[in-house]
């Protein structure tokens, strides 16, 4: 059984200054992994480089032991919510249907089966009653759920999610984490860019600590310590209580 994701010596730079330096790691199947690090640590960049959305200088990425080109259909992606224009003339169901496009090929249009599938995905995030709602009329949390439903419609085995918990209400956060846990139970692998250190222990069984360099990746109980966090965040981390959950005092 090959690992869902293997990254070897990945380096990415914008305008000659490195954003990610020589990153190598392996991710085993069925883990829910939080990608954690300060602003500018390269968390989103890592996902984009793996998905070949931005060029990398060096490095090899293998997904299920093959190149991403050949494994696209097994990978789901949730970009940052702010990356799209929510005034676009479309409704929630139509956005979720876009998740099916990868399975359709060049000329086939989404049919009734795809529509039924998309509706089922909306149902899983508790949004079926909003299927025909114009997307600009949805709250931030509802928009995030639509994005999540779209990723479910991709019917993938390995998921990358860029800050799904940013700017959402408590109910949505709970709905999302419940869903992610369910994906994990189904043996799927989920990598999530995450900011709130207070919820790390509760949400993730593995974490990846990133700050341009890879500080560490492994089980949360081993890596979520004062020592590792200070190594990742440097001076911007202030522990209120060293024994319980650390809290970042400075803004993210």
């Amino acid at each position, binding site marked *: 059984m090959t690992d869902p994701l293997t990254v070897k010596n990945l380096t990415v730079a914008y305008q000659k200054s490195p954003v990610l330096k020589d990153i190598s790691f392996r991710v085993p199947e069925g883990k829910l992994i939080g990608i954690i690090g300060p602003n500018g640590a390269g968390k989103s960049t890592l996902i*984009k480089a793996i*998905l*070949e*959305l931005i060029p990398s200088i060096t490095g090899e990425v293998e997904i299920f032991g093959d190149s991403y*080109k050949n494994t*696209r259909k097994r*990978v789901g*992606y949730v*970009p940052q*919510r*702010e*990356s*799209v*224009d*929510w005034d*676009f*003339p*479309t*409704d929630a169901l*139509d*956005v979720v249907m*876009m998740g099916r*496009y*990868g399975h*359709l090929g*060049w*000329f086939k*249009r*989404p049919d009734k089966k795809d529509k039924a599938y998309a509706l089922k995905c909306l149902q899983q995030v508790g949004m079926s009653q909003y299927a025909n709602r*114009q997307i*600009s*009329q*949805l*709250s*931030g949390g509802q*928009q995030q759920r639509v994005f999540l439903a*779209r990723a479910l419609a*991709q019917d993938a085995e390995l998921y990358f999610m860029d800050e799904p918990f*940013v*700017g959402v209400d408590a109910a949505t956060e709970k709905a999302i984490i419940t869903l992610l846990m369910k994906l994990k139970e189904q043996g799927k692998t989920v990598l999530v860019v995450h900011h709130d250190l207070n919820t790390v222990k509760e949400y993730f069984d593995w974490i990846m600590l990133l700050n341009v360099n890879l500080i560490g990746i492994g089980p949360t109980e081993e890596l979520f310590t004062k020592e590792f966090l200070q190594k990742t965040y440097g001076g911007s981390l202030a522990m209120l209580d060293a024994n319980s959950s650390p809290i970042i005092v400075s803004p993210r």
Partner: protein
Amino acid sequence: MNHVWIILIGALVGSSCSMLGCFLVLRKMSMIGDAISHSVLPGIVIAFLISGSRDSLVMMFGAAAIGLVTVFLIQMFQNSGVQSDASIGVVFTALFAVGVVLISLYTRQVDLDLDCVLYGEIAYAPWDTLHVGGHSIGPKAVWGVGASFLLNVLVISLFFKQFKISTFDPALAAALGIPVVFFHYLLMGLVSISTVASFESVGAILVVGMIIVPAATAYLLTDKLSTMIVISVLLSIISSVLGYYIAFLLDASIGGTMVVVAGVLFLIALFFSPKGVRHHVKFSHGA
């Protein structure tokens, strides 16, 4: 019969421009449409100098090539650190100026009137007919603009889902394996071809009006992309018909009046649509 031909040409120009305009408006690239419509001028002139005629396919594709060069140059300047609006401004004004210089240099050799290129003269289009085997088969403009209209309909309906997703969420589109850059240049190529096909009837400058205004109006009137395209096409047809008759009554520029009508329709939509000024309270998107 000439009334019908002129209205038909105007409606075809409007339809073929406005369906592309929908994507430009949604990509927040209206100004790129403006840039292309100006910078194809040197392409029109060069192709005209080489081929000596105004209706050759050579001319269409020559200008389309210049249109793509425009988009490519704008992108290149942006990537090397020039502000995006500045790089659009630099590229299209410089290329447009080259066109103006070329026309003034060769004005005696070529029958290409700068006023006509800029503002169009649809009124004479019906007399410039195409002949096959000695029989007239209608004005050349109808065939030229009609061909670009059919090309746009064909390409957009074939690749509707690709255009839609790469407009709404280019990152996901690329992750799904859709060649986002290819579709970007395909769209820009269509804009260039439509501009060149239309310049004789509404002129290089006013064609921007037909690209942007009906699309911007349709955006206010619907929440669905396919409906937006249909509405924008209908609006451009209405603008052509009304514009023609108003121009006829006032004895004014036909192309100009068509775009003025489109502008008036936009204002009406802005005041009375659900998304317009009277109802602009919306949910904020949060952080």
